[in-house]
């Protein structure tokens, strides 16, 4: 039942490690989200073959697990770029010129929000609040929190990450 449905991206070499991660969380009550977070932390996305494996482990349907993966904005079905830039688009940042900053980031990277550059270098995403609302506008560049952004500071920060 696993083989045929595991999708066109199935990569058999992932399976032993996926099995380890799933087993390591199996003792938890409600293991699904912690398992998916651990898989994404290691693989950078949720490999297609993981869905059936999680379903089997939790005695749930493949459709249910697919439903969970696709419901949450965090989980990716394909790897992100080498760098991920998330710009806050919520109200507190809007009030401090966040939309102009977002437009500058998009123009500088030549990407629309939600897109990854063709060379796989950068993914640009929206985020709705980083909890930095009194040092707005803000963004998250890889693991680096950036507050009080200006268009000039964006130029400097993005120059630092490029490919």
């Amino acid at each position, binding site marked *: 039942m696993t083989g045929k449905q595991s999708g066109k991206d199935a990569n058999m070499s992932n399976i032993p490690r996926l099995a380890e991660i799933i087993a390591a969380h199996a003792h938890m009550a409600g293991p699904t989200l912690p398992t998916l977070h651990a898989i994404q932390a290691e693989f950078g996305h949720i490999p297609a073959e993981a869905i059936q494996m999680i379903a089997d482990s939790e005695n749930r349907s493949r459709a249910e697990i697919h439903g969970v993966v696709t419901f949450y904005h*965090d989980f990716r079905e394909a790897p992100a770029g080498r760098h991920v830039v998330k710009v806050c688009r919520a109200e507190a940042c809007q009030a401090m010129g966040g939309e102009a900053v977002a437009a500058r980031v998009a123009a500088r990277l030549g990407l629309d929000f939600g897109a990854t550059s063709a060379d796989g270098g950068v993914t640009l995403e929206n985020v709705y609040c980083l909890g930095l609302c009194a040092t707005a506008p803000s963004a998250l560049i890889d693991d680096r929190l950036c507050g009080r952004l200006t268009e000039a500071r964006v130029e400097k920060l993005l120059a630092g990450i490029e490919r």
Partner: protein
Amino acid sequence: MTVTFYVPQDAAALSVGADEVVEAIRLEAGRRGIAARVIRNGSRGLFWLEPLVEVATPAGRIAYGPVAPEDVPALFDAGMAEGRGGLGPTEDLPFLKAQTRFTFARCGVIAPLSLADYAAMDGWKGLARAIAMEPAAIVAEVTKSGLRGRGGAGFPTGIKWKTVLDAPGAKKYIVANADEGDSGTFADRMLMEGDPFHLIEGMAIAGLAVGAEHGYIYTRSEYPHAIAIMQAAIGLARDAGYLGASVMGSGRAFDMEIRAGAGAYVCGEETALLESIEGKRGQVRAKPPLPAHEGLFGYPTVINNILSLTAVPFILDKGAETYANVGFGRSRGTMPIQLAGNIAHGGLFEIGFGITLGELVNEVGGGTASGKPVKAVQVGGPLGAYFPPALFDTPFDYEAFAHAGGLIGHGGIVVFDDSVDMAKQARFAMDFCAIESCGKCTPCRIGSTRGVETIDKIIAGRDVAANITLVEDLCETMKFGSLCALGGFTPYPVLSALHHFPDDFAKAPRAQAAE
């Protein structure tokens, strides 16, 4: 002599260069042969001053801020290591001095993971008192304090606890809702990063009160720093016997774990949050049954906002009356209010209910950061109403805000200057609802998308009057037909923008032509 510096490791301080400031202090102290010890505290919540450096002196801690790394040599020249120059004693800063800090008393003062610091500032006293009490007496104390749900609904916490205490169940759970997704709010994040044992204590008291032995903190994946600190704190508290099989040697068990969400705003809704912990799509449950009867994994569950849970140790330690003596009308105690957006003095301001919106924005907050006039403030997050300055006499109180067509929500206030276009903000409210809708009920799932389309027509100047009527009608349907607050409260920002700022909905075609 070793000089002690405090530099916050709060995420907001990090976002404006706190780590670089620490490096600069170490380098400069080394260059001058000064022995320096740097303590990474949480934030005091004066975010316009972050990174806020404090220096310990015999006269107390002296504040400097905002400090940029390149400022550090000059600050040392001016005598920072001896506490000269700067803003004076931190505690005397007017923004801090005007507060009534019950919940945030330790935040920014202590090293977050120091059990000794925590205990030295009244830590664990509330829990110790709770251990000596019968469960029903703990619940009665919380009820007497008048504490109401700080997540926004304002439901009396004691009543919720009593329901769970009285509910039969083989197991019971405590769930801390730290899924703080509202723009303009950061109190949960600050508290978890700056005073994590406090949440542990609050949850342990709740566990003793209702007979639950396990708790979950559900927070956002966007808060990795808070998650790391909470995780470390849970481990330390367990090792020290504050969690585990016998809480503080009481013979009663309570333990907890932290769970991270995955970028879904709707999971801040309590039943969606429970679904998410259970490993499901974060879809809202129909009520009844209430979580207090059938909550997590089907068992009776106390689900409280973390600001409710962290109000409890004070109530147990200092007494319900001390807490209830502060406040306004039926809103008792303090509210950690968060001032954000375009505001000169943004930060966390904890005060008894009853202060007016105008005092908060103009006096405490100092007006806009841009220096332009305030046009609107959104109170209570993306589902909260926009208030014009004409309503600034509204006291901060659950009932007064409801009466004025709004809500206080989780206490976030986002200030906008006169460059804001309220038609765009109304459109954003609908758009945000469409992005974040869990999809379970039709008014929210479909209504939000139709709302965006209809507001787009208004902005484009097409059949403006008819489309405004349509939006109002749609809001009525969403308000009364949605399963939860996401669809049900999105009408607040939309209708308040429409009613208080009608000019922004009529001027669009001309404004576009002029550009």
